[in-house]
């Protein structure tokens, strides 16, 4: 069988115009499919940045919450109620909101403000410069060095700004796992300072961060919180809820899906048509092979091998090209949201296999039908 596949390989790659057209079709489709799904994966990952960065096991919130960015404040008594649930190791409040900063040169810049529980500082970022204790200092804020850091004019320790006529001072530069989705920088401070600096509604707690005594207590805690009229979600559930909101309620998911399907159709059209022409041009030769003594299944293997070879080569080039372009884009555009995940690669692979299967199906049908007698008959 190796010899037959060697012939198939030579027939394919030596027909350079068609081989190139096939590769371009598959590569282009793979590139677009991975680019689209990677952008979407990047958006989804960034939409849950606060949840990932804070890292609490359980998040308690108003049931109407759709995303972590749109908070509905909780009354203070909920904190006491949650703390009294058996199985809760500890529960702390979190402030999450936005504010307009006035920078030293007079420009205004929107920013996310995260207020950590004053006592525990639960969810603190990893400091690159300064110490976490400095957050208790007067007017103290910690700036997050992410892709939006430059929008704060890349401050150093001691840099000052204004927030609702309050003076703010950068006392530390920190790092978090994930950048946010909305292109604004993030500042961390204490919960009470956040309430003091930013105008608030009657209720002030954005989320309650809960740590269970053991994983077995999670279900009971969720049940008790639900009885109280609120919603408790594990970290993964909250991330999934946010992702579902962006997928199904914003139109982003639908648009990405449409673009991915269009990419698939483009790839299928170019590759399918080119492969069909390739098979048709070689059809008499396949008939001659049949007359000489090749078995039908050997010819089918040849077609399947050619389709698989071109699909896998195009897939490899497409993945490489897409990865390079995303890498380059992130080099020059730090807030470019695209992540190549194994899920994206797998999806693109499945679609390429479908393209190869449909393309080769047409070829296989033709080759199965060709009769050696037709070769004699001319």
């Amino acid at each position, binding site marked *: *069988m*190796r*010899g*037959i596949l*060697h*012939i198939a390989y*030579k*027939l394919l790659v*030596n*027909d350079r115009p068609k081989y190139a057209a096939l590769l371009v079709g598959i590569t282009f489709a793979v590139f677009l499919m991975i680019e689209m799904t990677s952008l979407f994966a990047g958006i989804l990952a960034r939409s849950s940045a606060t949840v990932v960065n804070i890292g609490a096991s359980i998040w308690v919130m108003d049931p109407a919450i759709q995303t972590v960015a749109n908070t509905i404040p909780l009354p203070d008594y909920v904190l006491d109620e949650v703390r009294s649930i058996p199985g809760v190791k500890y529960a702390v409040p979190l402030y999450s909101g936005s504010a307009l900063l006035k920078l030293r040169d007079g420009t205004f810049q929107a920013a996310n403000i995260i207020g950590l529980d004053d006592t525990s500082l639960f969810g603190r970022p990893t400091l690159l410069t300064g110490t976490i204790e400095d957050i208790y200092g007067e007017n103290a804020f910690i700036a997050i060095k992410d892709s939006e850091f430059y929008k704060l004019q890349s401050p150093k320790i001691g840099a000052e700004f204004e927030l609702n006529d309050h003076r703010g001072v950068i006392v530390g530069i920190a790092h978090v796992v994930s950048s946010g989705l909305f292109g604004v920088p993030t500042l961390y401070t204490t919960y009470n300072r956040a309430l003091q600096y930013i105008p608030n509604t009657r209720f002030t707690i954005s989320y309650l961060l809960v740590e269970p005594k053991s994983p077995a207590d999670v279900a009971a805690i969720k049940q008790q919180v639900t009885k109280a009229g609120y919603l408790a979600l594990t970290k993964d559930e909250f991330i999934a809820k946010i992702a579902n909101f962006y997928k199904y309620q914003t139109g982003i998911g639908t648009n990405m899906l449409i673009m991915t399907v269009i990419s698939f159709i483009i790839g299928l059209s170019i590759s399918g048509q080119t492969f069909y022409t390739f098979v048709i041009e*070689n059809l*008499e*030769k396949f*008939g*001659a*092979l*049949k*007359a*000489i*003594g*090749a*078995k*039908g299944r*050997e010819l089918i293997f040849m077609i399947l091998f050619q389709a698989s070879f071109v699909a896998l080569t195009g897939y490899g080039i497409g993945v490489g090209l897409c990865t390079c372009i995303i890498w380059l884009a992130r080099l020059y555009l730090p807030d470019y949201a695209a992540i190549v995940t194994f899920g994206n690669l797998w999806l693109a692979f499945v679609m390429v296999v479908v393209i190869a299967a449909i393309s080769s199906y047409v070829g296989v049908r033709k080759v199965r039908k060709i*009769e*050696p*007698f037709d*070769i*004699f*008959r*001319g």
Partner: protein
Amino acid sequence: MAKTAIEAQSLNKWFGEGDAKTHAVRDVSFEAYFGEVLYVVGPSGSGKTTMLSIISGILRPNSGSVKIEGTEIWSLSNDALADFRLHKIGFVFQDFHLFPRLTTAENVAIPLILQKREWNEALKEAETDLAIVGLKDRAQLPPVRLSGGEQQRVAIARAIVSRPDILILDEPTASLDGDTGRNIVKFVREHILTDQRCIVIVTHDSRIYEFADRIVKMEDGRLTGIERENVENLNAQ
């Protein structure tokens, strides 16, 4: 006495049904012997290509039998028949049907590769056969770089590379000019024909009749006569 290579008995083949039924081969019987060049001649539509396809195991007859070296080929399974063709019969097609994307040597090696022979070994053997047809120096060229006569010789090298007992040539001069066609058939007669090989040529080119041992004439699907009955000469060989 010369050994019988092909024995065709009461062959019938028709296409279509009812009013559209066309009888392409009617009750044809003949024998071909080792060591002879047998021509099948007749006008277009006389059924000679259909008959050739039947005796070479490519087109199943509606009735009748074909024995090659004593084997009833139409009782074989499809796979066994394909294997039989691969090992026993060599084909030279009218339009050569060489792969333009393979080298000349690779084209010639195809039957050996189909026989699961190792690639390099098959190519080496193909080059030996290209030397027989005088094209050793063209081994690495694609067939499209060769003249019509050279392509025909490549097709002949491909047909003989697996050392088949039966060689089938379909209109070998149709795509060639007069002199080249004549030289090709002369070459086949002088260098490819052996006592252990039977060559069947379908043609309507009367200029090459001189190279035939016997000529089977067909018209309207029927065998109308056999000219130049020199089987006696064959028997004497």
